[in-house]
């Protein structure tokens, strides 16, 4: 993983550079590991409470509705509809090495939940609000830097093209 260290900002002197501080968390995903394994298998998992039946995406190991902690892992459909999207030209710290710009979309699945992901294979120059409502295939990927991703691909072209 090749993240660049943050650079000092350009400021009008006199200024004093601070001691640098780097965070790298090891996130305790034991109870939601199925989700992260699912990404590697090409599936996006939600959780369903075995007691009250409530479906959760993002997945969670405890039910806020009935307070039970007995959940079933449910793979979501591999198709959905774009609810909204943006083309991001910003590269926050940790994403410096990504090719920009990238499209972030929110897609509704037939199960009635919504999933955020990267929409790939779309010409940025031809972007319009017409993408809202279009159908996508929901896939997953592991980026070259090792980070997981959910990736959408347009199923069909429609409207004006």
């Amino acid at each position, binding site marked *: 993983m090749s993240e660049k260290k943050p650079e000092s900002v350009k*400021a009008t002197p006199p200024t004093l550079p601070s001691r640098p501080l780097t965070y790298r968390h090891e996130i305790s995903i034991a109870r939601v590991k199925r989700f992260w394994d699912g990404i590697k298998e090409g599936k996006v998992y939600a959780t369903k409470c075995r007691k009250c039946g409530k479906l959760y995406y993002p997945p969670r190991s405890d039910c806020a509705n009935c307070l039970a902690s007995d959940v079933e892992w449910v793979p979501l459909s591999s198709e959905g509809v774009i609810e909204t999207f943006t083309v*991001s030209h910003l590269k926050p710290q940790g994403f410096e090495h990504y090719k920009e710009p990238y499209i972030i979309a929110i897609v509704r699945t037939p199960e009635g939940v919504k999933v*955020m992901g990267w929409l790939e294979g779309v010409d940025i120059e031809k972007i319009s609000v017409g993408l809202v409502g279009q159908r996508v295939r929901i896939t997953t990927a592991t980026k070259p830097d090792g980070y997981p991703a959910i990736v959408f691909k347009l199923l069909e072209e429609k409207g004006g093209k």
Partner: protein
Amino acid sequence: MRRVAVVGVGHSRFGRRDDALLEEIAFEAFKEAVEDTDNRVSQKDIDLVVVGSTGTRHYEGYPALPVAEYLGLAGKPLIRVEAACATGSAAVFTAYNAIASGLADTAIAIGVEKMTEVDTPTSTAVGGRGASYLWEFHMFGTSFAAYYALFATAHMARFGTTEEDLALVAVKNHRYGAMNPKAHFQREITVEEALKSRVVAWPLKLYDCCPISDGAAAVILASEDKVRELGIEDPVWIEGVGVSSDTSTLCTRPDYVGLQAAVRAAQMAYKQAKVEPKDIELAEVHDCFTIAEIMAYEDLGFCRKGEGARMIREGETHIGGRIPVNVDGGLKAKGHPLGATGCSMVYEITKQLRHEVKPSSRQVPFKKYTALTHNVGGHGWYAYVMIFRR
């Protein structure tokens, strides 16, 4: 519950403040707030100090005491609060509660933030964590511009709101920012300039986004008894306070054309103040991005859902319009030092309700002397709506 009045307000210059430390900027706002009470309130009168600061970008990670001590307030009951971009309002709310409940007679909310000491990619990454890290930022590097752009796209797709409409909000707020000597940007812009500015997160462009700013604002609140004891006549009263929250991920929201937390907070505040949207004569709303101002018109009930763009097109939110909004430049032109913003909104409303705005060309006319603040934290995580009357 006891009534609570605003008895003193102070405001530092917002902008890139390479000239001062965090606590020095807080001092500028504090000193002005004390002087604003005609020096009737001094440190000894203050029963509770609430520092509003997210503390996420400046070098002082636990800023409450360094700030309070610098203001001569060490030793006082002291608390630091955080509600992302609504941190300043959370500070005012905490001070308000202490007085309304009888715990304090005088309390101060000091909102302060130093955001420009780190580079933009760092600030963007810290800001992106103002949403769900694990389920949003971790995989997608979502910035705040991206979150609000997701709302803008949905609003455009559903209601026909256009990029020109968004630009009109920026033009209005820059126009008033140019008249506000404390604003980060004091320059007017045109619709063409806004539309031609570089894309940050489509459909949002550079001029749709508030800047990264440093700044502080302070609000001194007092009980009715204390107001009488201090001999302050005709203060600004806080008549209604609404606070709400929402889900931490955008995936779990029903739609992307409004903020449920803001709608709920507004309803609470209107109910407590016994007023309706039509009674509001001035609003300070959370325009971190231009689309946020358009959604605020709708969420606050100034128009029906989907009609926000019409309000800006028809000039209804300019001075002289039906409900002037953000006539100090808003977050868009005045700047958005996270902890300071909520306190800055109360500063502006107070000065307006007292007819003390300088230059007076920015002064809004009042009949009912009723105004509100609308401050949102995160991508709709928190909303604070407060109603003021004089």
